[in-house]
């Protein structure tokens, strides 16, 4: 336990001055380590699994890392043969290559001495496995699957929806936080009440509206219903309430028009809340699945999440592709989070959620 360990395990034990481990230190570290395992573990496993072959995915017991049976080329055989570790009758084990299997008997040869066939009961052999990454799970979809097109659609939907969300919601939040007018509280009440309408509840009428106004099979049909999110208006309004009214008075005295006040004073000052909304909007829109699936049924319009779902057939699901593409689709979200994460706490703290 050197300085490094002391540094990492800095503890509170009566404000770090104490000597022993206070019970809260133990709770803290147990909690954090369990948290790390439970929160990150599944995702890591997902990452490794995305490199498994379809057979390895269906396998039980599952492995953490992707393994495949090792194969060797043996003289006299056209195809590479699988290697097994066989337990022989007289005891002792040998690494043998399987030539063919008939019923419960496996015919094997020693790769170094391919002449003699050894018969082994299949219960007495275990495959020799090496770690191998099935990168074709990634490369194949890129070829077959119009990955670039789907990516572009996803990016278009995410960026457009986020931009419009930010502009439209911030305008509304500005009006609701900095103006007195009749109907303001009614508007607020409606927005609050609809905070909680889940999509699946209004899906049927929404679908008929979209198809009536001709937005069916159109990316805008995916974008528009999501942009007037009450959550966004709510978060931004709470934050804007904390911007002093005197600033707006000052700007009015400075001959700024209301529009200028909005975009030169209020928007820059609401940046932390806008960042929070931007992060959430990107995450939401990027991950949207059900609604795009309903609106888009043309290949050239698919978003990544919809594109992914085509691997789910009536009778079979091609998990290996789904996993790999899931990992790919997670990357942008994780990047956005890494770059903007410092805004999240400050933004949430400031966004009137306190």
């Amino acid at each position, binding site marked *: 336990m050197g300085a490094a360990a002391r540094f990492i395990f800095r503890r509170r034990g009566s404000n770090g001055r104490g000597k022993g481990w206070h019970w*809260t230190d133990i709770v803290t570290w147990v909690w954090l380590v369990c948290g790390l395992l439970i929160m*990150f573990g599944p995702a890591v496993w997902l990452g490794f699994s995305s490199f498994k072959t379809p057979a390895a995915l269906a396998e039980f*017991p599952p492995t953490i890392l992707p393994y495949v049976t090792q194969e060797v080329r043996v003289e006299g055989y056209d195809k590479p043969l699988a290697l097994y570790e066989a337990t022989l009758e007289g005891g002792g084990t040998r690494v043998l290559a399987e030539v063919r299997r008939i019923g419960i008997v496996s015919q094997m040869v020693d790769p170094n001495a391919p002449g003699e066939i050894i018969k082994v009961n299949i219960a007495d052999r275990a495959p020799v496995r090496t770690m191998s990454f099935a990168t074709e799970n990634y490369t194949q979809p890129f070829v077959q699957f119009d990955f670039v097109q789907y990516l572009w659609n996803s990016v278009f939907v995410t960026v457009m929806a986020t931009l419009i969300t930010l502009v439209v919601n911030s305008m509304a939040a500005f009006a609701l936080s900095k103006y007195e007018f009749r109907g303001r509280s009614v508007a607020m009440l409606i927005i609050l009440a609809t905070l909680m309408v889940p999509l699946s509840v209004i899906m049927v009428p929404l679908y*008929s509206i979209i198809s009536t106004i001709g937005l069916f099979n159109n990316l805008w049909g995916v974008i528009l219903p999501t942009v007037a999110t009450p959550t966004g208006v709510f978060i931004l309004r709470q934050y804007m309430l904390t911007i002093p009214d005197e600033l707006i008075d000052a700007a009015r005295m400075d001959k700024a028009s209301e529009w200028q006040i909005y975009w030169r004073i209020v928007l820059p000052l609401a940046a932390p809340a806008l960042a929070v909304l931007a992060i959430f909007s990107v995450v939401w829109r990027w*991950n949207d*699945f059900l609604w795009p699936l309903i609106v888009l049924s043309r290949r050239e319009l698919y978003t990544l999440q919809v594109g992914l779902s085509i691997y789910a057939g009536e009778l079979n699901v091609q998990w290996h592709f*789904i996993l790999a593409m899931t990992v790919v689709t997670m990357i942008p979200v994780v990047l956005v989070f890494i770059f903007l994460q410092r805004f999240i706490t400050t933004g949430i703290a400031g966004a009137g959620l306190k």
Partner: protein
Amino acid sequence: MTPIASSSPASNRRLGSILFVPVQFVMTLIDAPLRALQKLTGISGMAMFFLAPNMLIFGIFVLLPLAINFVYSMTGGTAFFLADRTFIGFDQYSRLFECGNYLDPLSCQEDAFWTAVGNTAWFVVLQVTLMILMALGTALILNRDLRARSFWRAVFFFPVLLSPVVVGLIWKWILQRQGLLNFALFEMGLEPHNWLTDRTWAFAAAVAVSIWAHMGFYALILLAGLQAIPKDLYEAAEMDGTKAARVFWRITLPLLAPNLLVVVVLALIKAVQVFDEVYVLTGGGPGTSTMFLTQYIYETGFASQLRNPGLAAAASILMGLVLVVLTLFQLGIGRRTEGKRKR
């Protein structure tokens, strides 16, 4: 790491100014007509202008569907478009409420609806209580004098970023009969269990997975609240020799109350709407033990063999009423605490 971190604000600013030029140009362009508009409407009239785009989109894509849904709930048949449907009044509602005994869903005509209602109620109570306790615990721990706090914060927040479908899939692979958890139990010499096909365990799994997916968000809000509590209060308490538990009950909790309220309300709303991740995880099974209201509405109105949009709409209107009650409850509490603070 260090050089990147130190150079990033500058590069941010540069990037910002590159982006800023065209935006500024557009905004200035818009300004001229808007000044004219402002002359016409006056300053307070501009509020309507700012509100209009949001309200327009909101009206078309949220309020209008809600209104149509109400009309739907008064019509029958399997047709999808309103024009093709026949008006039947409140029959759909009476069908939902046709029950032998309201405490036993199986005695009802629409037993699936009442099962879903019961499941949702249980889920909301369990999930919200447990999640908030855990989020509070996490926030308290993250608020301690930790090394690499932002890393730990990210660890707990990370699942919030995942799509519900991914969350459902991951946990399905972990919890299914041949999943990772059973493998781990097996390796440790314990008896594997079929988690997702056992009614109790499947429900517990739905609660646990949903907590896993959302807890980070609430922990973050609570953490923000904890960090806003002035440090000198704790110092004063220390001077008074107050015990840690008492500090928690008498200082931390009361000062965190507004955040807790927000968290409870948001979590309640979210819990009532539970669908995606549980749907992927259990499909509503085993039997109907994890089928929730939203799934019932989705399947009845959209995904079932013979869809019945009217019945689904009626169910969604009932669900909406519950949600409105929750909102009013929130507004009520919010106002009362605000009032208290003023006094």
